[in-house]
């Protein structure tokens, strides 16, 4: 076995599918990195991909990732950078084949080994699992999955770092996964590079914290940062965050020299508390991290040291992300101008609701917001404000219903208000809103031993 490195750099390249297209290229070219991790999967993304795959068996993955690889593969191969990405969606093998095609086209035949991590997809196994007593109860409501079984569109267990480590150990340079946790894409490389055992709970927790910090891309390096936000330099050329880890589990957050943004204790703290539940138990398939043990210190410009992280053993469960068809929704908007912008928008809302009532339309929910007045802070927003002076207000009304016809009828009641409602109205150039299908998220747990991750290698 080769000597362990003193430090390993894992660069965050994408915080979500749709993140900045320039970021991965900048991360692999802007300075030395060992790994590039890219997170593509939000909870509902899997159902969209499942739908694509059902129409075309060669699809069902994040196609943007393949375009990204086309751009960065020459650099990645030349510099020996390894890539971990959950871009495989519900078809990681097809994603890997597409990347292999790109590699061959770039003249990299024989120079790239791609690891494929699967085994997370439970959709075809659901009935068997339910029959064997796995209720897949909704973690929020306690209802068994049986209640919505006929409407399930996707079901994926969250795999951890272990199969990523396995792929790297077998020589994969690019690891493409299905539903692997965001944190596993960072922890996996660290476990592999430093040879951390699977029960080194403190280091597993440290690697998990590292993953949590960079999994949202620039949110750890100045993006969406409230602390002294006006003084954060050059967000136009923001440097995405990089974990520079040591074998003992301590690590520094850094970014490439000359890039914009800022890495400071306040900003990293903001990212640590983002989407946090009980900080004492941040549960992943790999272990349980205790966020109340994290110590942060500014050890240089744009360099924050993270140490002291303690962890606990992994649980015997995996989280399962299930998506199911819920119903329909539509959102209509109109903009009202001064004077009395808010009053006009409220009058329009009342009229609209009277008409919906008169039509006998039933909705599971109808929500009116007055953008410019209360859409973000609700009733708190108007406490210190002269409502009559608000220069403009967007009326934004949403409805949700299992009845598509009711939602469709609602969409036809917005535009008439332009001519037969309150005055000074504009902003309807987008036309009639379209009813959209609502796919809802059903979180559940399953016994770890029922899920067997699989690793396959594909040579370009």
């Amino acid at each position, binding site marked *: 076995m080769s000597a362990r490195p003193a430090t390993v750099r894992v660069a965050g390249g994408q915080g979500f599918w749709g993140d900045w297209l320039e970021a991965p290229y900048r991360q692999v070219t802007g300075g030395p990195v060992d790994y590039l991790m890219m997170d593509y999967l939000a909870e509902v993304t899997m159902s969209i991909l499942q739908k694509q795959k059902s129409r075309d068996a060669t699809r069902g993955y994040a196609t943007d990732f393949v375009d990204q690889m086309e751009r960065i593969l020459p650099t990645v191969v030349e510099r020996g950078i390894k890539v971990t990405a959950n871009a495989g969606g519900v078809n990681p093998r097809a994603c890997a084949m597409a990347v292999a095609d790109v590699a061959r086209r770039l003249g990299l035949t024989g120079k790239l080994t791609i690891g494929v991590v699967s085994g997370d997809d439970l959709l075809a196994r659901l009935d068997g699992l339910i029959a064997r007593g796995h209720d897949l109860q909704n973690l929020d409501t306690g209802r068994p999955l049986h209640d919505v079984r006929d409407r399930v569109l996707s079901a994926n267990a969250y795999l951890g770092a272990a199969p990523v480590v396995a792929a790297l150990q077998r020589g994969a340079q690019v690891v493409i996964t299905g539903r692997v946790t965001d944190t596993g894409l960072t922890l996996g490389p660290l476990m592999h590079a430093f040879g951390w055992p699977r029960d080194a709970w403190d280091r597993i927790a440290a690697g998990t914290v590292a993953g949590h910090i960079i999994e949202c891309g620039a949110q750890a390096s100045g993006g969406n940062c409230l602390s002294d936000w006006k003084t954060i330099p050059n967000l136009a050329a923001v440097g995405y965050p990089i974990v520079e880890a040591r074998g003992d589990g301590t690590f520094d957050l850094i970014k490439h020299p000359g890039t914009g943004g800022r890495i400071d204790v306040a900003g990293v703290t903001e990212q640590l508390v983002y989407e946090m*539940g009980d900080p004492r138990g941040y549960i992943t398939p790999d272990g349980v991290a205790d966020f109340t*043990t*994290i110590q942060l210190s500014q050890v240089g410009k744009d360099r924050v040291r993270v140490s*002291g992280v303690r962890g606990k053993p992994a649980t015997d469960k995996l989280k399962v992300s299930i998506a199911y068809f819920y119903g329909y929704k539509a959102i209509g908007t109109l903009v009202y101008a001064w004077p009395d912008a808010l009053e006009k928008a409220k009058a329009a809302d009342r009229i609209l609701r009277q008409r919906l009532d008169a039509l006998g339309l039933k909705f599971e929910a109808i929500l009116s*917001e007055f953008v410019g007045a209360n859409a973000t802070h609700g009733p708190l*927003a108007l406490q210190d404000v002269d409502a009559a002076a608000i220069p403009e207000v967007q009326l934004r009304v*949403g409805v949700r219903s299992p009845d598509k016809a009711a939602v469709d009828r609602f969409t036809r009641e917005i535009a008439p208000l332009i001519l037969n409602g309150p005055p000074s109205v504009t902003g309807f150039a987008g036309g009639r809103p379209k009813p959209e299908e*609502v796919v809802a998220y059903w*979180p559940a747990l399953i016994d770890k031993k029922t899920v067997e991750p699989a690793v396959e290698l594909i040579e370009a």
Partner: protein
Amino acid sequence: MKRKLVELAHARSGDKGDTANVGLIAKQAKDYPLLVKQVTAARVARHFKGMITGPVERFELPNLHALNFLLHGALDGGGTISLKTDAQGKVFSTALLRMEIEVKR
């Protein structure tokens, strides 16, 4: 004297299903005990009255001079179901910073 939290703290928020979280972080470590004492779960629940349908939980992170609040039933069902502009609870953070607390002068 009363001061708005925005002067003493910064915050970031996100979602988990129909729950929004708000991480409230003291700008200066010396103000953290003030937050612990005054920004209680009950006080936060009153602050967001009419905006959330469930209870408020609070967790302490003294190591980060931060409190984490879970606002249950904050997102009209959450994620894709929600009809709210802020379906993912991104700006409950600054809504909390409107709260006033008592500071000795």
